[in-house]
Structure formats: structure tokens, C-alpha cells
């Protein structure tokens, strides 16, 4: 949580020949809604370019309906993208056709779910998921004893002790926080490179959340695992993430190092979000008193910025042209026609469309 975090990030970016751990280009997901004869489409995710590097925690923040959960499911291959491509270590996912390839990806990129009360099968003891995962993905462990030893190791690594005893319990015998830790242990058992965490702490009590966020940071340091941390809580995103991406109505509207985005938000939506977050230690921030938090319409949206109806800075071009992501500071991009770059930052000649 201290400043040496940023050192790790810069190491990754330095070598341009290594492809990033995970990259999406133009990833789009539309859902048809309204029955067999309707032509309406729900634009859940539109033209999203994300990069995740090794040993990095990237937060994807947004309200419900922003598309963040859909992105998690696209990356976990629960959905297939309508268009665009996902590259894992440089290779496109669409080229992974065999079950073996597919299992390989799944063991490198597992997912942790939001609801601790339904993420573990109530009919089995909690070691069930871990043992199944080890059986499917860890070919290096050949006997049941070896797998059990590994299960104990990962359960211990997420802070649950005594590991052997906990593994024999049923889910109902564990608290919400303990179950989420088991969820992380399940993911850790694969020796993953990137863990997709879909709102892993939203349903936990406040005093327990920090414990789990600390586990994430610890795993990044010790097991060199990256995280995609999906959340609607900006404060927890700031606490644990190296980089933050803000989503609105299916688009990434701002992206950059966590501190930069929060200290100097460029996109009006980010500014609105930050003004609305209650902080007991600070005086009540002056926010937009007229914005009631109405969600955007993502059914058949036309061209133009999707935030224009709520934006205090809207101008004509916002109604006509989708704003591209522009580089406005070091590593800091925003998709807004009126956002200004940092005072001392030279905007490159070409418009950049990826993070």
C-alpha cells in the first residue's frame, strides 16, 4: 500500500517487446432484447480497450449497468464478444479451440465471485471446489495427498487457519468473509497469472472488507498475481489498485494511475462520482445537487457521448461524435471532448485510442 507499488508497474511497461498479460482491442458485447421479433440491442460493452500487466492490480469502477460485470464475464469466457478480440499473452482467445487450450487459459485466468452465500456449493465441504480445480488444472500434482497438501497451502495463504480443519467444513459453517477467502484460495490453487475479482467485497461487512483487500495486495506481492478488481466503490479501488479505469454506459471513460485519476479527474463523470462519495473525515463536498443518479440508456444509443444528458460541460460536438480516449497526462486517458490535458504534459500528435 506504500509508494513502492508504482515501481513494479513501471518495470512492466519498460520492455515493449513483451506483450501485456491481457489486452482487449475493440471488445464489444451486445445483447438482443425484447423477444424474437424485436431489433433492439442492449449495448452492454462498446469498443473497450484494456491492458493488464503482470503483477498489477487494475480496478474497473463504475455503477451498475456500466458494463463492468459483463467485461469480467467476457474475460472469463462466459460470454463471447460480439466483436473485437481478447489477447492473452499476445495470443487471441478466438484461436484457442481445443479443450486443452481452453483449460490452460482458465487456469491462468480464474474468477472470484461476488456473493459469498452462493459461490460455494452448499452440498459439499469447502475443499470440493479447490480439489476439483486442482484435479483439472494442476497436472504437476499426481496424487490425492499432493492435491490436499496444495489445498492446505492456498487456504493458509489467504489467511484461514487452521487450514486442514477449515477444509473439512461445510459452507454454512463459515462466515461471509471466510467464504470469500475460500473463493480466493480456489483461484490461487491454479497458480494463476490474473484473477478476475467481480465485486469480491461488496457483500461483506465493512470491517471485514479491508482484510480481503489486504489479501489481494499480499497475493500480488508474494504470488505475483495480477488482479482485475471490479467494484462500484471508488475508495476501495484507490486503496488496493495501481491503476483505475472508470466505466460509464459500456465505455471506458477514464483510465490511468490510481492517484492521478483521483487527484485530478479529467472526465466529468469521474468528477461527479468523486463528489458523491461520502468521506466522514472530509467536509461535505459540493456536488451536483441536481443530478439524481439516473442510469444511462444503453439500448440502441446513437452516436455522441453517452454522458451528455448529465454533463455540466456539454457542447455541440458531444451530441454528434463519440469522444475517443485521449492521452491527457502520463498514462492518464479520458474520453471527453472538453477535458483538458495536464498543464505540463505534451499531448502526442495522434489521438491514442488505447490505455
Amino acid at each position, binding site marked *: 500500500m506504500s509508494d513502492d507499488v508504482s515501481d513494479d508497474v513501471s518495470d512492466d511497461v519498460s520492455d515493449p517487446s513483451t506483450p501485456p498479460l491481457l489486452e482487449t482491442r475493440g471488445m464489444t458485447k451486445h445483447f438482443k432484447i425484447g423477444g424474437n421479433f424485436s431489433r433492439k440491442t442492449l449495448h452492454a460493452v462498446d469498443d473497450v480497450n484494456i491492458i493488464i500487466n503482470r503483477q498489477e492490480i487494475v480496478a474497473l469502477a463504475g455503477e451498475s449497468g456500466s458494463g463492468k460485470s459483463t467485461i469480467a464475464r467476457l474475460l472469463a469466457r462466459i460470454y463471447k464478444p460480439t466483436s473485437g478480440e481478447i489477447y492473452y499473452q499476445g495470443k487471441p482467445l478466438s484461436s484457442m479451440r481445443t479443450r486443452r487450450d481452453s483449460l490452460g487459459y482458465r487456469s491462468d485466468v480464474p474468477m472470484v465471485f461476488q456473493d459469498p452465500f452462493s459461490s460455494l456449493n452448499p452440498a459439499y465441504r469447502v475443499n470440493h471446489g479447490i480439489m476439483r480445480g486442482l484435479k483439472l488444472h494442476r497436472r504437476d500434482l499426481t496424487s490425492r495427498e499432493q492435491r490436499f497438501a496444495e489445498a492446505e497451502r492456498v487456504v493458509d495463504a489467504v*489467511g484461514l487457519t487452521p487450514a486442514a480443519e477449515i477444509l473439512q467444513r461445510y459452507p454454512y459453517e463459515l462466515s461471509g468473509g471466510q467464504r470469500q477467502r475460500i473463493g480466493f484460495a480456489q483461484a490461487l490453487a491454479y497458480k494463476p497469472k490474473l484473477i478476475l475479482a467481480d465485486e469480491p467485497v461488496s457483500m461483506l461487512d465493512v470491517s471485514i*472488507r479491508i482484510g480481503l483487500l489486504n489479501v489481494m495486495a499480499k497475493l500480488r506481492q508474494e504470488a505475483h498475481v495480477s488482479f482485475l478488481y471490479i467494484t462500484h466503490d471508488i475508495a476501495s479501488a484507490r486503496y488496493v489498485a495501481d491503476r483505475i479505469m472508470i466505466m460509464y454506459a459500456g465505455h471506458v471513460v477514464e483510465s490511468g494511475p490510481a492517484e492521478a485519476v483521483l487527484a485530478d479527474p479529467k472526465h466529468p463523470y469521474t468528477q461527479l462520482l468523486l463528489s458523491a462519495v461520502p*468521506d466522514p473525515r472530509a467536509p461535505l463536498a459540493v456536488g451536483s445537487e441536481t443530478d439524481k*443518479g439516473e442510469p444511462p440508456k444503453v439500448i440502441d444509443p446513437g452516436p455522441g457521448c453517452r454522458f451528455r444528458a448529465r454533463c455540466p460541460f456539454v457542447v455541440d460536438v458531444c451530441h454528434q461524435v463519440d469522444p475517443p480516449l485521449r492521452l491527457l497526462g502520463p498514462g492518464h486517458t479520458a474520453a471527453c471532448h472538453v477535458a483538458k490535458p495536464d498543464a505540463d504534459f505534451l499531448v502526442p500528435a495522434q489521438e491514442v485510442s488505447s490505455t
Partner: protein
Amino acid sequence: MSSAPILEVSGLRVEYATSRGAVCAVDNVDLDVRKGEFVGVVGESGCGKSTMLFAIAALLSPPAAVTAGTVKFHGHNLVTMTEKQLNVLRWRDYSVVMQSAMNALNPVITIAAQFKDALKAHGAASNNEIANRSAEVMRLVGIDPIHLKSYPHQLSGGMRQRAMIAMALLFTPDLVIMDEPTSALDVVAQRSLMVQIKELQHQLGFAVIFVTHDMSLVSHFSDQLIVMYAGQVSEIGPTRQVFDHPAHPYSRGLLDAFPSIRGPRVELTGIPGSPPDLARPPQGCRFNPRCPQVFDACRVTEPLLYQVGDVQARCLLHAGGAPLLETSEASGATT
């Protein structure tokens, strides 16, 4: 705000009948609410805040029941009143806003029809009056009255919650009880709703009891703050005091568990362990297994509420006279 409280809760105790015997969910709670006051009740799951709320609103049903204490609203004890007597008070003098509008609103009738039901049930007369009043309260909460014709699922989450609040204000009650009305909303809608509630309070002068698990949410809006833990009041006092100088280690731990978006990035620890099983609460202070400042007496003596400046805290550290100076490490419990 006048000084005579409109609501006086005294020694309230609520028990549940379970297969393992009676479990006490709310233990000996005292609370006063004055006219126009905003009282925040904060706590985590299992602390009893929602049960207490339902007990105050006289909405408990088996297996839960009030087994001790009084809830005096304008001097009348709600606990001993019959359904008939309660119906006279309900909605006119106090009303309730539930946690999830989708669960509380009838999904198959329009908003207008629900308002009409409520108005008719509690005494309004002509259709004209009903229509006028319905439109009036919708405008009060910032919704265009045209939405009266909508069904609940046609409104967004934020609008549904506002409609619930509008319904609660139909008779301009003296007290509105709210059970986590913002927890299903996103942060912008949440803030907007809080500001609206505060404005309405200034306008109409009703008092609010607001239950939430999100302490920071009420930090700028409530006058009085109650922190509950394991069925008991662990700290109570003016909001600002509790936030700036929390007297109870639990309140302090809770405040520290909120990472902030401004200021320096600091490593936090949260509170280890989890809330106790109320069927078998710990001996002595209920927080002792998780307390960073626990000492020997905590495991034996049950603390009372002690006065600490403007607040009261249920902690032996403040039990009159010099607190014992020996401290020991909290026993390591896993979350």
C-alpha cells in the same frame, strides 16, 4: 428542535424463538428522538439494528417479540397497544421506508393506486383529495407527477426509493423510520437521495431514524449517531463527536475500516474476527474477542454505558475511576 423527545425508547429487549431456545437480538436499548432530529443507527450484519427498527415501528411478528422495555411515542407506549390502536397512529404519526422498494411496493399496481390505498386506509376522503395529495408528495421528492401512472418496475431504482419516501410522507408524519433505503442505489443516486431527505426534513420538520451499515453515509447528515454491536448500543452521541473522537474501540475500528479517497494512502487493518453468535455471546464485553485494547476485566465484567464527554460508550476503558492500565493482545481470530 424542542427539547421534549417525541420518541422515547427505554430498556428495549427483543428476543427470537429458535430451535436452540430464545436468542436476544436487541438487548436493553435506550434511545430518545427529538422533533426534527436525524438519528443514524449504524452497525454491521447481526447487530440488531433492523430488528430494533421493526420493534420501534411495532412491526415485529413471531418468532420475534418484544420481551421488555417501552417505546413511548408522544407518550403512548407502542409495545402494549393493540393493532387497532396502532392503526390510528400508523402512517399519520409515523411511517416506515423499507430497504428495497421492489420488495415493498406492489409490483402489479401503479404508484397512484398504492398511494390511494395508503391514503384511504388511514383516513383520506375524496378522490380529488387523493389525487392532489399524491401529486403533491411526488413533487416534494422531485418526481414528475406523471409517473404516478407507472408501475414500479418502470421506474429506476432511485425513483422507486423516492416514491417510497413520498408514500411515507403522505400524512406528513412526525417521525419517518428508514431501513437502509439507499443500500440498493449507486453512489450518485445515494447522495442525491440523502440530500433530498435532509431538505424535506427542513421543510416539513419530521424526525428521521435512519438505519444503515454505511457509517460514512450518515456522517454529514445525522444529528445523533448510535453504533450498535451484537444487539447492544456500543456508542451513542452527537454525530460529529463520535466521528472525531470515537470512545469505543469498535467505533474507532469501524471508522478506520473505511479507506478514504483523499489524503495519504495508508495501510488499514479492519477488525479481525466476526460478530458473535447471539445465541452464545462472549462472557463480559461482547466485543472482547476482537478488541485491540482488551484487558482482563473485559472478559469477565459486562460494561454499562459510561459517559465520556458528550457521548456514551459501552466500554470498561471509561468505567469511572482510572481504567486498568494493563492491556493484552486481542486473541487471534480469523475473519
